C-alpha cells in the first residue's frame, strides 16, 4: 500500500498522466503534485497519485550530496554537510504541518 515509486510520464490527458514504472504503465492522477508536470518528467507516485515532480538537477544534487556525505566522513567535518542539507531545503521557512 505504502510504496512510493518513481516513474516517467509518457502521456498526459487532463488531470491524468500515464506513467512508466520500470516497464509497467499505470494511470496516475496529478491533483496534488507539487509542480506542473510534462511528458518526460519523473514523478514520485503513491497509491495512484503523483506527489512530487523530481527535477532532473535534483538527481545530480542528491548524488553530489552522497559524495559530500562520504567526504564528510573522511574529514569528520559534519558542519559542511549540515550547511549542504540546509541548502537542500526550500528555505521558504514556515512549519510543514498545518
Amino acid at each position: 500500500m505504502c510504496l512510493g515509486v518513481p516513474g516517467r510520464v509518457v502521456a498526459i490527458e487532463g488531470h491524468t498522466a500515464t506513467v512508466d514504472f520500470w516497464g509497467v504503465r499505470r494511470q496516475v492522477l496529478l491533483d496534488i503534485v507539487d509542480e506542473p508536470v510534462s511528458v518526460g518528467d519523473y514523478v514520485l507516485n503513491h497509491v495512484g497519485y503523483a506527489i512530487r515532480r523530481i527535477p532532473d538537477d535534483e538527481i545530480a544534487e542528491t548524488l553530489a550530496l552522497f559524495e559530500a556525505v562520504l567526504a564528510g566522513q573522511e574529514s569528520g567535518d559534519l558542519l559542511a554537510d549540515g550547511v549542504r542539507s540546509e541548502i537542500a531545503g526550500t528555505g521558504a521557512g514556515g512549519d510543514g504541518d498545518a
Partner: protein
Amino acid sequence: MATPDREGPFREAAFRDPARASAMSGAIAKAVSALGRSPVTVMHVCGSHEQAIAKYGLRAVLPRELHVIMGPGCPVCVTDAPEVDEGVALALQGAHVATYGDMLRVPGSSLSLADAQAEGARVHLVYSVDQAVGLARRIRGEVVFFATGFETTAVATAAAVSRGVPSNFSILCAHKYIPPAMDVVAGIPGSKVEGFLAAGHAATITGWSVFEPFVARHRLPVVVAGFEPLDILAALLRAVERIRAGSPRVDNVYPRCVTKDGNRRAQEAMWRVFERADGRWRGIGEVPGGSLRLREAFGGLDARRRFAIDATGLPARTPRPDAAQCLCGAIMSGIASPGDCPLYADACTPEHPVGACMVSSEGTCRIWHEYGGHPDLGDIT
C-alpha cells in the same frame, strides 16, 4: 527544461551503484568503529525501507554493531483490531467495503474482511481510493472506503474527497499520522533507539521540518531517507555520524524528493479534509495525535456517522492458542525482532499468519520471511 542524458531509461538506477554502495558501507563501518561501542541502534519507520533493506541484503554490508530495526511503519499492522471490526461489521451489514489489498486478511478481534467475504459480504480490493469512488458511481449500493495508511495515503483520500464523491460513498477512516508514533516509540522506557530514519515519501508531503520538534524533544537525530540502496546507506552513515558527534538534528539525504516545507498543495488537501486526533495503534497503544479523522465539514462522508456500526454482534472467535506468543507489538516498538518469536517461519508463515506483521507485505515478519531479514554474508566473505 533541457533533458539531460538519463543514464538509461531509469535514473533511479544511479542510486543502486555498487561502487558507491561499497564506499558507503566502508564509511559506515569506520564511523561505527569510531563510536567504539555496541550495539548502535537506528530505527526506521517504514515498510518500504524494510523491503529495500531486506531485498538488497543491506544488513550484510553493515557492521554487526549497527542494528537497523523497523518500528511502527506498517500501515496494515498498526490498524487497530476494533477498526477492522468496524469494517467487518459494515460489510456484514450489507455495505460494499472497498480497501487496500493487505487489509483483507488482517485479523480483527472477530473476523477478518476475508472471512466476511467468505460469508458472502461484499469486500472489494482497490489499488487507489479512486477505484472505490468509481465503484460507487457504477453501483447503487452504499460503498464504504476503509481508509488505512499514513500521510501519503491520507493525501490521496483527501484529494478524492476534494474532487467530489457520489452520495453513496463514505469513508471509514483509520488513517494514521507517523510523527506522534515516533514520539511514543522514542519514549518507551529502556528504548535503545539512538536515531531514526524517516520515510522519504511521507516527508515528501510533510517536509523535513516536521521532525524538528521531535529532535528537540528527544535529542535524537532524524535522517530523511529515500528507498534505493544508496539512499538508505547514506542515511545510515549520516545517522551514525550524528550519534557520534552528539549533535542531533534533521538531515535530509533525499533532497530529490523532500524539501524543508514539503508539498504544500498536498498538505492543504490533507488538512482541509482531516484533522489529528488521539487514537490507538495496534501493537503500540494509545498515540496522542496519531490518528486522522474527517473534519466536521466532511462529517456527511463519515461512515461512523452514516451507519449505526454494530461490531458487538460479530461472532466470537477463538484465537489460535499460540497467538499469545506473537511479538508483533514488541517488534514494532523496537524491542524484539522476528527471530525472537518462537512461531516465526514455523507455526507462523505468510500462508498461515498469526499476527498482522506476517499478514502484510509491509510487516517486518513477512518481509524477513520473504527475503531473509539478516543475511550474514559476513561469514562467507
